[in-house]
């Protein structure tokens, strides 16, 4: 995905600020009861009922190897659209808190440094320098379709 001028949905995991392209985001919902699905990677929290649709939910903290945090009233699920084997699927992403939608221009975005990041490099599209803070722009599709999930898809 080329980084151009765009709108980002920003959210936080602990003290870290992140952003995803608004085009991938379908909606933001509060915490719902998650049904665990045994025998899946740890960061897959399970499935939720999104108005009759059953969608998988992953915890971004666990995915990024951060300490788990108990869910509270600020915890949100970002519902995003990803393509799995060519089919559009909805997935839920649990984040600590959703902040705001910001406009960002390409000159505000810098390429990600090669090291020193808690997040795997290939998830990161760039570093966005906003007025008062910095956000890590991630590709939600890449995050979800990581090795573990791909392994699950392949072992069919």
């Amino acid at each position, binding site marked *: 995905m080329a980084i151009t001028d765009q709108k980002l949905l920003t959210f936080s995991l602990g003290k870290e600020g992140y952003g995803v392209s608004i085009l991938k985001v379908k909606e933001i919902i509060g915490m719902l009861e998650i049904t665990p*699905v045994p*025998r899946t990677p740890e960061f897959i929290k399970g499935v939720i009922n999104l108005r009759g649709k059953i969608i998988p939910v992953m915890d971004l903290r666990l995915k990024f190897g951060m300490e788990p945090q108990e869910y509270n009233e600020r915890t949100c699920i970002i519902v995003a659209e990803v393509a799995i084997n060519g089919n559009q699927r909805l997935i839920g992403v649990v984040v600590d808190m959703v902040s705001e939608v910001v406009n960002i221009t390409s000159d505000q975005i810098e390429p990600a440094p090669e090291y020193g990041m808690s997040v795997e490099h290939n998830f990161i599209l760039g570093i966005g320098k906003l007025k008062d803070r910095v956000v890590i722009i991630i590709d939600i599709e890449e995050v979800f379709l990581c090795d573990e999930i791909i392994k699950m898809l392949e072992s069919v």
Partner: protein
Amino acid sequence: MDNYQELNIDQEFWNDFIVEAFEHIDDIETNVISLEQNPDDMEIIHTMFRAFHTIKGLSGFVEHTVIQNISHKTETLMDYCRKGELAVNTKIVDAILKSSDYIKRLCEDVDSYKDKSFLDQIEVLLKVLEDLANVEEISVEKPAPAVKTETEQDLQAEAPPVSSMEADVVEEKPSEENPTEEESVEEETAEEEPILVKRDLEAFVNEIFIIEDEEITSTDKAEAAKEESAKVEPTKTEPIKEEPTKTEPVEEELIKEEEVKTEAKVPAQEPVKEPAKEIIRPTETQKVEPKSPEVSSAKKIVSSNEDYMKVANHKIDHLVDMIGELIINQSLIDQYISSNYTQDNQLIVNMSGFLRITRELQSLSMSLRMVSFKSTFQKVSRIARDTIQELNKDVEFVTSGDNTEIDRVVTEKLLDPLVHLIKNAISHGVEENVQDRITSGKNKKAKVELNAYNKRGKIFIEVKDDGRGINTDIVYKKALEKGLIDPNKTYSEEEIKEFILLPGFSTAAVVDNISGRGVGMDVVKTQILKIGGKVNIESTLGKGSVFTLEVPVNHAIMNGTIIEMRGQYFIIPTMNVKEILQPHEEQWIFTQGKRTMLKVREDIVPIVPISIFFKGEKLEEHVPLVILLEVDGELKALPITNVINRQEVVVKPVGEEFSSLKYISGMSILGTGRVSLILDIDYLFKKEAKV
């Protein structure tokens, strides 16, 4: 047409064209099979003629000349059949099937017309179609001398009679024939009519006077009816009666009359009811008097046309989902009311009224997904026909009950198993040698049947053959050889027959020697089990076999038992639940310090290891409940903490991201709005279901 010409296909209409064309192709396929059985059935020939005619017209509209060419030639051939100048035979049927196949392929793959080898095939087919139309012309059975002396060129000039008929609509008298050169010109314009007319169906139908009794499914048929009316009227039907005796040497008139005869056949059915109001009517009265009987019948056509509307599957699925969601929400409210507002009678009454409506709504929405077996049977019939021809066997293939209704999702899953079973019945069931049939006192012609029916709320589909039956001795030996069974155990005849459903058991190697034809029967079984069905085998050696598939009407709804394991709810299909019991400590059998089996009366039942679901976890010391699961007479015990409920659940497929989790067969949303996993019981019984 050696090299393809770039076609300038109108994308906007192409998609519409495909939908429409497929409908006609489907029609053709169904009809052609029955035509082969009743080669004299004019009704079928007419329908098929019209179908090809419409495809031709439509393809002209999207400017797909290849399809237009094929359909034109086929239509010409059908026209001869329609006029009785050609007798339908296998060659013709083959050619028609090929035409529809090719058209299908051209529709499915827009670029296929660029494929040189495919174009060559088409070229061959076109030649065949022409030859069929020409050669058999000479051996015409009709005692019409004029026809017999016709030259080839004359014939070709007459070839598109429908277009001339369309031209007739504007003609005032039948004797005023258009010169043949003009016909071909008009053909181009006339063929575009169906689509143009389609835009204004209602206004158009108002113009129809003559009613075809048969089911009218598309506007072009109505179009045809209109033409018929226009044509028949001025002739006042007399020539029809005269025709057989008349030996008019003028070619054109004879042809004309023949057309009138065949066309008039359909409209002539109407006057039986209304003898006073003959179909004779001047062409000018195209504005309809509201109370004439024709109009009321014409309205009938409109309604039969409008009774159907095409809706995309995903929309229906979404509707069903949303209604399911509505029901869940409603039950949440209902629960809240019944615990907090027990005093408020009005609220309770209103709520129960609401419940009734939503329940009705739900069953209605489920019924939207119900489809008949027609298209499935049609596809299977086609494959049966091909298989019979390929193997060169004398087999009659009969279907019944194709109007049985079933959930669309289920029919999709049934097609492959049915194709397997039918192929098996024809290739392995039916005797290789006709002599074998004769010696055992059977009809020379074998019979393979495909029947569907509804019984006790389930759908049964039988694949029946009167062939040699299953030889249990051979089956037993083969199963033993392949190490699929326990050599020390004795099996009943029934059990042995079931062996052919085992994976790794090739029927081909047992019953005959046609290698490569044996399709894994285990695939059939797995598929059917997946949709919650069963496979039954009945077979008598030397008499034949019946494979019966028993499947639920509605795959989406299942009776489930909700259980709790480790604080989590799971759903088990109730049909697999044999018993729920509280085991006494002395019933447990330990191996290597673990509870691995349970003694239930005389049976020793193995325990399903809990680590299948919860990786690395062990069974607790105290197991309050055990649920006995049964699959094909085998038992397994699943330790659980609690049984919650037994209810109808709406099954949703497992999302792709979880498809590697073999222990779940689906998911469902419970009344609380919570998602629950449905356990795949068959998997728990499989050997590979390891920790």
